[in-house]
């Protein structure tokens, strides 16, 4: 049985990847101790935090997750660049948000779960850019199916509406466990407009209980509050699984900030050291270790764990740890429409045009995924109405009009791995005295060119067809908070950090599963792929523990 000093497997991080792995190991009879840097809070508290926020801060999904002093995370609406947790540099700002709470950042994800396509995994072979994956789509497919059933991902049964598209020859091994959610009026109109231009707006496969309970969680109540928190647990987030893990024997230690991974002379990992909220240090031994702390904290912890034998940090003989930082650079078009669309009925992201992410143009520039954001608009337009100096009924009428007749269309791009997009340890220290992450970032010409010649012109055509009377298009790329690449996967230990099972090339008993391992981003949200890699790692861990 695991205790607070040692366990069969020590998992650092209680986000969706760590939780999925933990459950697989527990089901296989392997003892699990999980370390979580941040606090463990109730959904009730997060929900009330949100409700008590002033309107101006409700648009920042981190606002209802105040960080513990010992586990800081980015708080965009409260930080200055100087005191920010992420120290950013470069032409584009790698301004990510994530949550260091038990349950991790799925607390405020939208639940969007697009699989990669076969082409997404062979960019080098097919288009001569980026990196190929260490394996093909066929290897990943069964894990995708498992994730869909583990998390409860709803999606269409009509192959014509599924992703990846049937043209890429990708039969699904299992149907989605639940049907897709119906479109709201805005999405319905957007779908018709897209169709008039020859594009297919398809239902988002998403980790949300559509019209039925699943996983002992209730059906979606359409509160349109998926981001920043689902108040009823109808959207899967890893916090919903913590109680179940404990009922299966997991020990979950919150407020335990891992700061050093300890390797022995043979290169095997012996222990993880953590600091508690009173700054006391603890050592946790184990047979096997999993770092699933997200694509920023995992490379940071590896770099912090440098010792005489590993002067560049652990798992870093390739010098690739912290490099290849990737995301989905996005541009938002804010439209004023001549007729009401009424975004906001149903979940916050419920459909998207994915086919525009694929094509031979990828040898020249990035693809893009276009989505009609289904966030209710009143939160965003109220200040515009106030700024017009309106009061009373006129103010109400204007808020209502703009809620109906404005829309955000998001263009989400892929980005290529580049060694100079790099996370290092900043000289600035956090509350515990640990280094803050520093990240240099440039989305690169491949992505910039897409915006110039492809995605924005396409977005403008769609906006015009939607009846836009005004169009504001972001000029700087924003981040999608899909952290990828920092512990990149490959067969060759000289230019990659982990093997196809997310095992560190340098350390046989150290696994680094999640977004950090992804060798390409494609355009769709990364979580389902991160968890698929986690389950693949879990299978490898079970085999490895069986041999031990």
């Amino acid at each position, binding site marked *: 049985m695991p205790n607070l000093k040692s366990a069969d497997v020590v998992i650092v991080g209680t986000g969706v990847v760590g939780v999925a792995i933990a459950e697989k190991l527990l089901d296989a009879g392997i003892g699990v101790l999980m370390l979580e840097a941040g606090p463990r809070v109730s959904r009730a508290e997060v929900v*009330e935090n949100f409700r008590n926020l002033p309107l101006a801060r409700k648009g920042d999904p981190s606002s209802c997750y105040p960080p513990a002093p010992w586990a800081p995370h980015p708080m965009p609406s409260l930080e200055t660049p100087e005191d920010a947790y992420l120290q950013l540099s470069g032409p584009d700002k790698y301004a990510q948000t994530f949550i260091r709470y038990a349950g991790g950042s799925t607390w405020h994800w939208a639940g969007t779960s697009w699989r990669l396509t076969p082409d997404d995994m062979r960019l080098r072979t097919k288009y001569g850019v980026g990196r190929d994956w260490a394996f093909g789509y066929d290897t990943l497919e069964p894990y995708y199916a498992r994730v869909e059933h583990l998390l409860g991902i709803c999606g269409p049964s009509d192959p014509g509406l599924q992703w990846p598209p049937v043209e890429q020859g990708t039969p699904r091994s299992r149907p989605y466990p639940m049907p897709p959610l119906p479109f709201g009026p805005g999405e319905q109109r957007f779908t018709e407009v897209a169709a008039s231009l020859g594009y297919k707006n398809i239902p988002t496969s998403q980790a949300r209980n559509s019209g039925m309970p699943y996983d002992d969680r209730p059906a979606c109540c359409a509160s349109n509050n998926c981001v920043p928190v689902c108040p009823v647990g109808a959207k899967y987030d890893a916090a919903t699984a913590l109680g179940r893990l404990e009922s299966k024997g997991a020990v979950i230690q919150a407020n335990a900030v891992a700061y050093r991974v300890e390797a022995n002379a043979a290169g095997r990992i012996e222990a993880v050291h953590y600091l508690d909220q009173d700054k006391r240090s603890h050592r946790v031994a184990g047979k096997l270790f999993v770092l699933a702390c997200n694509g920023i904290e995992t490379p940071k912890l590896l770099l912090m764990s440098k010792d005489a034998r590993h002067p560049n940090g652990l798992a870093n003989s390739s010098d690739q740890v912290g490099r290849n930082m990737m995301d989905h650079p996005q541009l938002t078009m804010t439209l004023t429409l001549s007729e009401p669309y009424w975004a906001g009925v149903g979940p916050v992201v419920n459909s998207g045009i994915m086919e525009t992410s694929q094509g031979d143009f990828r040898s020249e520039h990035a693809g893009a995924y276009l989505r009609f954001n289904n966030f209710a608009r009143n939160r965003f337009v109220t200040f515009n109405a106030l700024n017009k100096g309106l009061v009373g009924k006129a103010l109400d009428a204007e808020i209502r009009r703009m809620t109906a007749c404005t829309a955000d269309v998001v263009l989400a791009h892929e980005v290529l791995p580049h060694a100079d997009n790099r996370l290092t340890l900043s000289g600035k220290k956090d509350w515990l005295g640990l280094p803050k992450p520093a990240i240099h970032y440039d989305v690169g010409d491949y992505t910039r060119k897409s915006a110039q010649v492809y995605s924005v012109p396409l977005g403008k055509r769609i906006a015009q067809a939607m009846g836009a009377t005004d169009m504001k298009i972001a000029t700087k790329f924003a981040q999608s908070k899909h952290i990828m690449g920092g512990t990149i996967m490959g067969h060759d230990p000289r230019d990659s950090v982990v093997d196809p099972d997310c095992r560190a090339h340098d350390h046989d008993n150290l696994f680094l599963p999640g977004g950090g391992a992804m060798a390409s981003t494609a355009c769709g949200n990364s979580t389902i792929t991160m968890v698929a890699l986690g389950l693949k790692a879990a299978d490898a861990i079970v085999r490895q523990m069986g041999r031990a």
Partner: protein
Amino acid sequence: MKAFLHRVIPVVLGLVLCASAGASRRFDAATIERGRYLATASDCIACHTAHHNGAPMAGGLVMSSPVGDIVSTNITPSKRHGIGDYTEQQFADALRKGIRADGQPLYPAMPYVSYAALTDPDVHALYAYFMEGVPAVEKAAPHTSLPFPMNVRMSMKVWNALFLDPQPLARTEGRSAQWLRGRYLAEGAAHCSTCHTPRGALMQEKKELNMAGSQVGQWYAPNITPHPTAGIGSWSEAELAQYLRTGRLEGKSQAAGSMAEAITYSFSHLEQADLDAIAHYIKSLPPVDLGETGTPGAPRFGQGQAGHALGEVRGQGYAAGMAGPQLGAQVYSANCASCHGASGEGTRDGYYPSLFHNSATVGKTNLIAAILLGVDRKTADGHVFMPPFGDQPNALNRLSDKEVAALANYIGVKFGGGDASVKPEDIAVIRQGGPRSPLLTMARVGMAIGVLVLLALAFTIVRRRRGKVGA
């Protein structure tokens, strides 16, 4: 090798025999089908199947009773672990007399007191179904071990002699066929009285208070006599039949707990004529008013109104709200308002019920149980699921006794027309399985007194002898 063959040959032979036995069916399909319908009407599956993917009829469900936990048995036709060896007579005796094949009495958690009403042809059909319509599950269900002296099964023989009526349905004149059918189903197969009729000190049903309401484990099975305020006198027969089919009557009530199971597994699958008959019979019962919990003198279906106390919690922060005098309002906002509305109004389509005009919020027991245990009910209309707020792995939030008490008082006063009398101790009682019967204590005290009397006697005798010796 020889030893191996010795082991394998009987197994192979056994398989061959089983297969051939399976080939020669003893019952025709129509009989088995009728048995299946009666088993559905009797809701065997609700108790004899473990939750969370237990094999049908293979037992293993742990049911909290006032005298301890009772585990349901495997009633599949497995010869080793189930009832595959039962003769029809043994099956009938278990069903109607509460006597197992080995002669040991069953505990009356098995509603044989009600099943005693089943006719011979219906018992025959049920036997056919259980022998040939249910897949055998070769797995033993865990044993029931009640605390002493309840573990002495033979004591049930005395109980049966006192309380088991072999002919529970008295002959009546002048009743319609529908009424007779309704009575047969309600008092027999559907065993409504098992839960809805108050029980006496020895756990026997008080027949004179038939269907007047009773505590059953963590839930209160309410008064379903036609009393206009204490019972369901305000419901039409059609409404009652609709409730049995769907588990809810909008603006009045919805089924949870074991009634949700009865709706899910039993009533929602019955023929409309049978539901109508049950409703017709229930509405003909003598009205009773116990003046107890859940019957505050006005119908429990029209209490309360919309309202909130957000002004007193909003803006001060969650921690302050949880520490302040408006704890109930704060817990409500954080846990309930997302579905049931800030003012308890529910949704317009009724998918999320309003909390006023809702019997679930009237009287404290079911309100507490709904909060702690949630609601889980499946019908043709869909799967209704409210998450629990107790200690379960899937509890949406784990609320403390103090928090549930404050919430129950907030809801009870605001929406249920009640008073703020719920205390944290009341929550603890429901959390641990519901009120315990004094029966166990009585039995133990009774025996202790018996032992003391014996000791006293022995002491007196010894003294007398010593006296004699000394004399």
